């Protein structure tokens, strides 16, 4: 449950999980109970829709797996509650004046859950296995920028880069794996994928297939033993069931849907038992076009579609107002966000004019535009289990019908969507989301060199100027210079409309009121999870 690191595959995330809580902003402060005295014990029960796939974090790209891994493993660095990088397994680090070499001074006395000591060997192993071409991981890119990595002694780890790489430090937030258990073995066959051993605040205890995963607090955790004794991750496939479990008091934390947040959870009975939180998530949802498809080759067509979509209507209907319009790939208010983007606002007349200019004409009376004898038809795909995206798709479907475009919607299971549709470029348009990383580097999503199979620029966006700006932006540490690069990129994206950027939703987590010590911060609520507690007299489990 720590920050997501940069823009990774994982960022094509499922919104229904708790990920969305890992961010910051305004919060409705709930009714206060007496704080009580911090005490050890009790358990927190958290619901998840899907079962984790693999508990070795570099091998998994689903949110449930990373939720668990985030508690079991540590990285060298992490983001603190104010979204500043701080040391985790690295006590401190030095960056050489040229910015090309980072030396991490590792924390001494940290133990793996099996008692083995944590050393630089583990870091070296994690680095090597991640960049090993045989390892099926989606997280190798940042580590591949490393020119040399060395471990001069057990508590020092040094990496150098060939050229400045701005997201370098952030990339070492990756979970460090235990070398003594994995070295020389085939990681894909390791039993650690079902029984992980880490250095984190919680130790893996038990995985009852299809039911739950149980973690226990790690008494030897280097930051101190967490107050809450056990973390129980219950697998509940149906969202309505999950909500009923929450109401019945058998679930302690979940992410609410906007309807649940604003219409179903305002009774005194509910607010006495639960605390609700609300803040903008570090996520944006977009409608992306496959630019290799002839239908979307013409910029005017993409601009027309954007003009035909009413983003305010989507935020109202889907998020019940709990979110904001997205105009580009950054969150409003962050330093890289360009507030002067000239986006295409809702303007159906303009949409029709642009379509007509692009050669799409109404020739018969069925209301669908035609060009070269072909009707304007395409399918929007999105992932299963995300109600907000499905609703968004339906609103877009309706709006586009108004300007003469026939849209079909198809919902596909996550793994299948990635494998059969996205990775093969086998789609016309899709509704997905990206997490917005703390570092504004968005090289992986927009650079023309990242359009290969399995890479993140799967819409096939190619723009020489953007390429240059992306390279420039990541290879300098000068904030002003970076800002200029990213501002310009946002202008180009707004003009090109390779995506129609839709919205930044609010995260709406709810936690049982017996948990105290929760401190909403820019990083969300879970940044100090190990300091949450339940006063002795209120402990349940």
């Amino acid at each position, binding site marked *: 449950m720590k920050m997501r690191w940069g823009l990774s595959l994982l960022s094509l995330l499922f919104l229904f999980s708790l990920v969305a809580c890992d961010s910051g902003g305004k919060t409705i402060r709930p009714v206060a109970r007496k704080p009580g005295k911090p005490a050890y014990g009790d358990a927190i029960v958290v619901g998840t829709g899907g079962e984790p*796939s693999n508990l070795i974090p570099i091998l998994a790209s689903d949110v449930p797996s990373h939720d668990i891994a985030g508690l079991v493993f540590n990285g060298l660095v992490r983001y603190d509650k104010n979204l500043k990088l701080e040391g985790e397994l690295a006590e401190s680090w030095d960056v050489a004046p040229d910015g090309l070499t980072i030396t991490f001074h590792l924390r001494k006395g940290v133990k793996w859950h099996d008692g083995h000591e944590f050393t630089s060997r583990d870091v070296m192993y994690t680095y090597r296995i991640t960049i090993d071409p045989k390892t099926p991981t989606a997280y190798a890119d940042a580590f591949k920028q490393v020119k040399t990595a060395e471990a001069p002694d057990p508590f020092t780890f040094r990496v150098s880069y060939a050229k400045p790489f701005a997201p370098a430090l952030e990339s070492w937030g990756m979970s460090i794996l235990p070398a003594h258990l994995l070295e020389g073995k085939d990681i*894909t066959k390791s039993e650690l994928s*079902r029984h992980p051993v880490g250095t984190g605040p919680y130790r893996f205890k038990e995985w009852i297939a299809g039911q739950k995963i149980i973690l226990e607090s790690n008494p030897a955790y280097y930051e101190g033993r967490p107050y809450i004794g056990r973390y129980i991750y219950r697998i509940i496939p149906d969202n*309505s*069931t999950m909500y009923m479990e929450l109401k*019945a008091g058998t679930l302690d934390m979940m992410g609410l849907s906007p309807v649940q947040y604003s219409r179903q959870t305002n009774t005194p009975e509910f607010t006495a038992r639960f605390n609700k939180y609300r803040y903008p998530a570090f996520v944006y949802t977009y409608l992306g076009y496959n630019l290799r498809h002839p239908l979307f080759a013409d910029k005017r067509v993409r601009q027309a579609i954007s003009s035909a979509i009413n983003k305010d209507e989507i935020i109202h209907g889907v998020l019940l107002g709990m979110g904001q319009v997205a105009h580009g790939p950054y969150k409003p208010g962050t330093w890289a966000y360009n507030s002067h983007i000239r986006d295409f606002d809702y303007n159906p007349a303009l949409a029709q004019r642009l379509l007509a200019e692009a050669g799409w004409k109404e020739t018969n009376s069925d209301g669908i535009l035609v060009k070269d004898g072909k009707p304007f038809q395409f399918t929007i795909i999105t992932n299963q289990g995300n109600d907000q995206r499905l609703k968004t798709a339906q609103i877009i479907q309706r709006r586009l019908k108004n300007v003469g475009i026939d849209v079909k919607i198809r919902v596909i299971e996550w*793994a299948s969507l990635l494998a059969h549709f996205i990775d093969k470029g086998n789609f016309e348009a899709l509704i997905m989301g990206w997490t917005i990383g703390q570092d504004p580097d968005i090289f992986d999503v927009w650079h023309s060199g990242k359009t290969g199979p399995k890479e993140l620029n799967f819409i096939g966006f190619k723009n020489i100027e953007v390429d240059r700006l992306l390279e420039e932006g990541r290879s300098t540490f000068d904030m002003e210079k970076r800002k200029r690069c990213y501002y310009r990129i946002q202008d180009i994206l707004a003009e090109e409309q390779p995506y129609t950027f839709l919205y930044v939703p609010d995260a709406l987590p709810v936690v049982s009121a017996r948990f105290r010590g929760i401190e909403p911060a820019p990083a969300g609520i879970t940044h100090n999870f190990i300091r949450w507690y339940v006063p002795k007299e209120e402990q349940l489990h």
Partner: protein
Amino acid sequence: MLSYLLKRLLMMIPLLFGITIITFVVIHLAPGEPVEMQVAMNPKVSAQARQRMREFYGLDKPLHVQYVTWVARMAKLDFGRSFAPDNRPVTDKIKERIPVTLSLNIIALILEFGLAIPIGILAAVHRDTLLDKGITIFVFLGFAVPTFWLALLLMYLFGVKLSWLPISGLHSLGSEGFSPFRWLWDMAKHLILPISVAAFGSLAGLSRYMRSNMLDVIRQDYIITARAKGLSERTVIYRHALRNALLPVITLLGFSLPGLIGGSVIFETIFAIPGMGQLFYMGVMARDYPLVMGILVIGAFLTLVGNLLADISYALADPRIRHGQR
């Protein structure tokens, strides 16, 4: 009897083959190669590794050869490895799920038969009365209500509003520390809703069948004779008629299984019960072909066994078959 049994067992062989063929055909109807999935999930798979994988799954061979290899491996209970990122053997994944689904369905089956038979008899004996009509409506309501809707309404009523029953899952938190009796009671409470919903939905078919069987029997000559002999109505109905009306119901036992197993997808998903139905649903959605094929074959095989057991019990109960072969 022995020869009947033997004949019955031999008959299963072609059926078993038929099951595997249909499963194979159904899966190969799907567009794309099964191996694509695994390759695509793994960006680093080289053309060479891909070829190896094709060979491993025998995808470079003609379809009939693939089929034979698959069946041969299945005979050794090897269903291959799941395409999911956990890459576990399909047999393991199914093994940990089967007991839940099977025991749940057997309990539901017992409940179904335990309720439907008396209800059917009652309706037949009191034919065309208000009771008969009430029963008719009741059992058809059970059939007509969408399972997941009923399940959610009951969950809301008993779980959230009244707090009488747990909402989902199989055990409460901390049930590991319970005494055996309390543990069992805890699990029973968790099972009340899913099993009731499953049984309620399947009441109609069996009770209607029982009713019409009973009506048939009542009109038979020997019942009329028994009545004429002056035996009491109770004796006539419950001694003579019932036994004969019950007999054909046994054969239905086997056929109820596929319906229940099929329905388990819905109530396992809604009640968060880690059974085969839920696993199958997840497998299908993720196009986990080895898993889907494995569950299809095993599901059908279970029905086959169920039918066999039903037929044997029928043979044991029916004197014509029991003695006929001598």
